[in-house]
């Protein structure tokens, strides 16, 4: 399948336009991490970016979040150029990002409190969200008293309570064990199907990407990583992650994408070894 349209239809939730990420190295020579990446996520669309380790996929996410400014190129959010932080996006980080000095309930409520919601109301709504992610009775626990999976649930509630129009996820389930990942994936799909936000989901796990998303975007190995493939996922929703992996269409797509990805993974390894 060829590259999908790179020109942004007006009003796409996220449109990365020829984004270049470059740094100046310690010795002064420029280093291009990502080279002219263009990508659109339509409103309500679930897009996964897959690429070998170190290809700059998390960097693209940070650019969509407004945490980083691209060296060249631009970002449009719902048709308007992004300037500063992306206020319409919620970001679920790979590493632990909960406030360790706040309880689970306070962690979830904080996003509303910063927006000016009164504390009592914020906490009530936070409790409702904790219940939705299955942690209704864990509100008074501090993050260190929760398991990795439970912390991710709190993180999900923390982000979703603000009802962002765009959800950015950076290998959010990476550190979890396979079982928990599957449960979290199903929880995510469940929550997402309620109001279908635009999702940009970064992962290095192709199976996870196909099982969750509407479109899978493949990045090449860095440096100067590019987007080298864009596939639609022809699987019906609602999906159950463990069942969808048995679908023949899943396997066909997996084989097709893996064919492209494999070469890049090997290239990435070769560079890492050579470095």
């Amino acid at each position, binding site marked *: 399948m060829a590259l999908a349209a790179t020109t942004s239809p007006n009003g796409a939730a996220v449109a990365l336009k020829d984004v270049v990420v470059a740094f100046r190295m310690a010795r002064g020579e420029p280093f291009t991490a990502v080279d002219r990446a263009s990508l659109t996520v339509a409103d309500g669309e679930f897009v996964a970016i897959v690429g070998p380790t170190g290809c700059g996929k998390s960097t693209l996410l940070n650019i969509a979040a407004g945490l980083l400014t691209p060296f060249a190129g631009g970002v449009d959010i719902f048709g308007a150029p992004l300037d500063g932080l992306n206020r319409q996006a919620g970001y679920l980080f790979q590493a632990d990002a909960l406030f360790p000095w706040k*309880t689970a309930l306070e962690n979830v409520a904080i996003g509303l409190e910063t927006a000016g919601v009164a504390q009592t109301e914020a906490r009530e709504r936070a409790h409702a969200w904790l219940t939705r992610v299955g942690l209704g009775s864990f509100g008074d626990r501090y993050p260190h008293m929760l*398991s990795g999976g439970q912390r991710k649930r709190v993180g999900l509630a*923390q982000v979703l309570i603000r009802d962002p129009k765009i959800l950015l996820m950076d290998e959010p389930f990476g550190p979890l064990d396979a079982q928990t990942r599957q449960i979290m994936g199903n929880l995510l799909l469940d929550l997402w199907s309620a109001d279908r936000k635009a999702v940009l989901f970064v992962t290095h796990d192709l199976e996870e990407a196909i099982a969750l998303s509407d479109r899978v975007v493949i990045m090449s190995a860095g440096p100067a990583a590019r987007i080298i493939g864009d596939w639609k996922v022809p699987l019906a929703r609602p999906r159950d992650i463990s069942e969808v992996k048995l679908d023949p269409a899943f396997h066909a797509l997996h084989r097709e994408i893996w064919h492209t990805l494999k070469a890049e993974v090997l290239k990435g390894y070769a560079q890492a070894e050579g470095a």
Partner: protein
Amino acid sequence: MNRLTLISLQILVAVAALAIWHVLTTYPVFGRILLPPFFFSNPFEVAQQVVTWFATGVIWKHLWVTLLESVLAFVLGSIGGVLVGFWFARQPRTAAVFDPYVKMVNALPRVVLAPIFTLWLGLGIWSKVALGVTLVFFIVFFNVYQGIKEVSPTVLANARMLGMNERQLMRHVYWPSALSWMFSSLHTSVGFAVVGAVVGEYLGAAAGLGYLIQQAEGVFDVAGVFAGMFVLAAFVIVIDTLVTVVEKRLLVWRPAVGDQRP
């Protein structure tokens, strides 16, 4: 080891130490007394002195003065440390400019400042408070500075994505982080506040535990010196216990060592 055995053993250590002290200062071993009472006194005389102090009530005034000086030194030093720590951590340029001077002052043994403080502030409590402040300030300052610098970048990015403005970042991220670092050094800084007070008193004062010890030493009253040391040790233990209680209350969110879940 259960609690009862532990306490019994702890008491046993004290009893044994006192017994050895008593025996060596009272009974000759191989024809001579190993610890001459003139230099080492003995447990009974020291106990007697302590009891007299408390019975007559002389000690309360000195305890109160030392406590007041320590608390003032701790509070003022902490406030200063927190303010300057925040300021430097948020203004890297200011921090860079002042860096060599901060290091210079911190490297200075604080005892040499005592005569200057006495000269400037007199023999009253404030010269001791000043000495304590110079000790407490740097501990709190370095910890607050570190606490703000070491905020996890992910937590910070998360806070910004959750819509926090600069003031909310201060309140919900920087302040708790700095506070946790400051509290981890609470025992040290409280200890130094007491050290500042006692050393200051020892070098020139009209009241306080340090003064009491110095007075006893001046008339070769070894029992008085030891008695003063015991009261001081008990005083420090009481304060340290209070600090532990406060710490446990304020840092409930922190995992106990070895309690960290994966």
